[in-house]
């Protein structure tokens, strides 16, 4: 997993018509919103509220998709899957992974 890039800069810029300004503004917005996205997911998981987990996961994925953050999205999907299966132990494990991935992603986006 360490070899995989956290997000796809090439296709993201391509999609934005190489408009670096848009990329920076949108990246900054994501970085600013990331703690809330993560907190929502954590709260939903603590409450064992599956529909809230799905909803918070949807927001996080929807935001991360703009940067092609494939690894993060896959991990969120795995977390959703585990919660649906009532496997909250492994879901919490996934949350830890998400936390780390998100922190690194934010650091990279901030550096743009």
């Amino acid at each position: 997993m360490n070899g995989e890039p956290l997000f796809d800069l090439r296709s993201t810029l391509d999609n934005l018509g190489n408009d670096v300004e848009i990329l920076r503004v949108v990246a900054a917005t994501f970085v600013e919103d990331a703690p809330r996205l993560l907190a929502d997911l954590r709260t939903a998981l603590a409450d064992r509220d599956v529909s809230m987990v799905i909803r918070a996961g949807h927001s996080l994925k929807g935001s991360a998709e703009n940067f092609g953050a494939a690894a993060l999205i896959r991990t969120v999907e795995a977390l959703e899957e585990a919660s649906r299966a009532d496997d909250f132990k492994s879901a919490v494990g996934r949350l830890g992974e998400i936390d780390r991935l998100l922190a690194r992603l934010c650091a990279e986006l901030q550096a743009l």
Partner: protein
Amino acid sequence: MNVVIVDDTPTNLELMRMLVQRLDGCQPIPFADSGSGLDWCLENDPDLVIVDYLMPKLDGLEFIRHVRREPRHDSLPILMVTADHEKSVRYAALDEGGVDFLNKPVDRMEFLARVRNMLALRRSQRALADRATWLAEEVRRAVAEIHDRERETIVRLARAAECRDPETGTHILRMAHYAQLIAVQMGLPPDFAEMLLHAAPMHDVGKLGTPDHILLKPGRHSPEEFEIMKQHTQIGYEILRESSSHAIQMAASIALHHHEKFDGSGYPRGLARDAIPVEGRIVAVADVFDALTSARPYKRAWSLDEARDYLCGSRGAHFDPACVDAFLAVWDEVLEIRERFVDEEEPAAAPEPDNER
């Protein structure tokens, strides 16, 4: 153009806001809260709404339904942002009409193309609506102009008739207002009463065709002369008949019938009761009452009491009882009209006691 963007995810909202801002002449109006976005749409005039589907509180479908409930927004273009696998959501949105879709994640090329298409649609809608408004206004103005001209024709005809008549202009105004008053009081439609006000002044236009030596003769008319006098009803009718104007059609009827009497003893045709059109029966009361209460070269002005007694006495004979009753029922307003239109040239001719009624 105003482009409202509603998405609870800040990153997506910001991305779409920036893309819209890059378009010429577009003002993005972003809302992270769907309720606030809806309020704005209902109070303002958006040109395009871009709304995310999955949102807390109000979702995209509910949002569209609420917007559509506002009649002003029944054809407002709306783009809904969904993942392309959400087929049933897309069908439901299509049911709401005027909706197209944007795929998630937002693809800039697709986004810009669809937004441009929707705004082109909006521009056409606006141009069409502006044109319709402009046309309606032009038609309204043209119709008003026709009405004004028609009224002017009527006023000028009435003036022409006045020149030939020893009666004064204020007589014509008073009797026309009395006639309107009676019609209103009888419960006839307001349009009819209004038309009567404009048509009644022409009742004596036929006197244009009465020879001077008879019309202007100071004393009594001989029976032969009176026969010629009577012809003013028929002459007036000939002048006015077959007009395409409703007011002049009514004036023709009034000219012909205002000397008919309810019991059939009037002229020119000796019609009785309902055979006399109602405008003729009304004007008969209005005309006679004002003639009685006005001073003329050959007679003094009757007092209001005397004139009132005459109307009551001739109720059912000369006059339609319904017209007399209506007239007497609004006596206060009759007095108001009398005070409003006073003869200038003969201020002392008809002194009336103030303690009438």
